[in-house]
């Protein structure tokens, strides 16, 4: 099996999920220059709610796709409501407060949401019922499952839909106008509060679908899953240029690839037995096909953070961000 191609396939799947979550961060940031810290928790709620629906319906005779669809249809409005609620409770009252204030409420909200999820769904790791049949295709030495194709397809479709919404509709131009300058947008007759609420709601809807897909892809859900996922998606948004919609998509896919390829190769690359200088010193460990791996694939989660730090240090505006991140 071709490791490289396989990791590219895995990376694209992961990356398209990151991209969808990253869109939620970047849209909010583009409009009110605020990191919606609790966005990862919305993704988690999406996963949990759809898991409940799917588990409840798994015993029935409905076709699997209909069950998954039902899960999505319940999760999306629920998460949208949650997104709206977050905006009203944690962000709107603080829109004119110093910058640290909404960030701190957001952290508080994400802790509260995690604990609520734990009370509702227990502190255990929950297994997603395996209702979708495993279909695997072999393409050029790499295997790609129907699920992976579906995830990538749905993500691309959602990104396309969002692009249409933002660049072709009235709401979209109102959003862009608000992002450009809220005061002037208000003078032009844009209901800025409604636009901001709509942004949160749309982001939360995307997050709900992403949550479901992450849950099905890994086969499990946990009340803490939103934190790491959110951090990574945020890194993706920064990588692409925060506030920039195409940037979030590119950043997500790129981060997925970096993670998958990094996890696939870091073990080999940091195996000191591959290097002549160390191999002689470590002879007893290396002889006979032994290995001395400094960093294995268990460091996978580090990549996103390293990418984040590198981007912020060397190119804070990200890959596609035209607006230079405000350096204080």
């Amino acid at each position, binding site marked *: 099996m071709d490791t490289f191609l396989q990791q590219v396939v895995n990376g694209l799947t992961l990356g398209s999920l990151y991209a969808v979550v990253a869109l939620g961060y970047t849209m909010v940031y583009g409009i009110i220059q*605020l*990191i919606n810290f609790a966005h990862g928790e919305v993704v988690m709620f999406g996963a949990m709610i759809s898991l409940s629906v799917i588990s409840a319906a798994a015993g029935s005779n409905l076709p699997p796709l209909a069950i998954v669809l039902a899960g999505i249809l319940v999760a999306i409005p629920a998460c949208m409501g949650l997104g709206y609620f977050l905006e009203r*409770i*944690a962000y709107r*009252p*603080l829109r*004119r*407060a*110093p*910058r*640290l*204030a*909404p*960030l*701190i*409420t957001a*952290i*508080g*909200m*994400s*802790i*509260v949401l*995690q*604990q609520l999820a*734990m*009370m509702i769904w227990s502190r255990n790791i929950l297994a997603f019922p395996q209702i979708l049949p495993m279909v695997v295709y072999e393409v050029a030495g790499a295997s790609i499952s129907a699920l992976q194709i579906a995830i990538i397809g749905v993500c691309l479709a959602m990104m396309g839909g969002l692009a249409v919404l933002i660049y072709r509709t009235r709401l979209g131009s109102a959003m862009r106008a608000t992002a450009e300058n809220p005061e002037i947008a208000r003078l032009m007759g844009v209901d800025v509060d409604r636009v901001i609420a709509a942004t949160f709601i749309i982001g939360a809807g995307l997050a709900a679908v992403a949550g479901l897909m992450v849950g099905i892809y890994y086969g499990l859900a946990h009340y803490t899953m939103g*934190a*790491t996922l959110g*951090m990574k998606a*945020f*890194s993706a948004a*920064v990588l692409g240029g925060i506030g920039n919609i195409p940037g979030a998509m590119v950043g997500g896919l790129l981060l997925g690839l970096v993670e998958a390829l990094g996890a696939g190769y870091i073990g080999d690359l940091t195996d000191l037995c591959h290097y002549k200088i160390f191999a002689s010193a470590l002879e007893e*460990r290396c002889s006979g096909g032994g290995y*001395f*791996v*400094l*960093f*294995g694939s*268990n*460091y996978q*989660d*580090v990549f*996103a*953070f*390293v990418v*984040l*730090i590198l981007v*912020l*240090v060397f190119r*804070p505006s990200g890959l596609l961000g035209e607006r230079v*991140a*405000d*350096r*204080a």
Partner: protein
Amino acid sequence: MIRRRTRLVIGVTLVALALLALPFALSAAGTAWVRITNLAILFVFLSLGLNIVVGFAGLLDLGYVAFYGVGAYVYALLASPHFGLHLPFWVILPIGASVAAIFGVLLGAPTLKLRGDYLAIVTLGFGEIVRIFLNNLSRPINITNGPQGIAQIDPVSIGGVSFGDTDVLLGLTVSGPMKHYYLLLLLLLLVIVVNLRLQNSRIGRAWEAIREDEIAARAIGIDTTRVKLLAFAMGATFGGIAGGMFSSIQGFISPESFVLTESVMILAMVVLGGMGNIWGVVVGALLLSFVPEMLRYTVVPVQLALFGKLLVEPEVIRMLLFGMALVLMMRFRPAGLWPSSARQREFSIEKMKS
């Protein structure tokens, strides 16, 4: 004037006596309470360290627990059977503090140019990286012993008196946790004095200037990057010392003690008390340390009596309390329960603008 002074002396003496007698009163209620008090002091310690970064300099650091972890692991590695090293604590504590400070500079140097919210995310990422490394540095060379953590860490011992066991002194039984209490109290006093002195020093005023308006601060000749770096290093140093103390008191540490929620808890303490106000932060940390513990002892019986079973675990209530504290404080009393005067002004001016 003299009368005020005598009153102050009497007040301080009374407080000091109360603090000295406290562990005896607490141990009557159970040694657990002495331990809880010790942890509370440790959290005051940490909150004061974070207060330098968040309160004084206005830099939101969400990875503060990383420095705590570094200090704790340095202590554990140098005084446990894991490497067979048993250095005395007054040698390790400075080492731990300096290593933590170095980590602070390592993190700060590349990131302090960033604006506030980016900095928050980067520090959060840094905290995660440190935790992942602590979890995984057990292979190929076993440094941190992975998720199992390090056990049998030496207790502090000074001049042959080990803080691990119980002694009888002047007819009074002094248990290990009680000795730790006095040691922590002494350290805390030192930390508070250092903090008070820092606040009114040249550096302290530079921090405040940067917090209020960084561009103006630079215009009047403050080397902002260096001064911010100093705040990071200083905060990290306190984190490192607290970590070392934690190691020696607990005798066992694992990466699980150094997770993001811990950072958020410390932040909640600083925010609740009032960012930038030393006494406010002390009160905030004590409140958020003790109230959840008291809840633990009341919530369980109340729930059992009302519903016949445990519906909400005390641990959950504790975390909910921290989360709600952050949200409610920011909405209704953003400058904290006991705000520093400068902060209060800052928050109310922002309100006037709107």
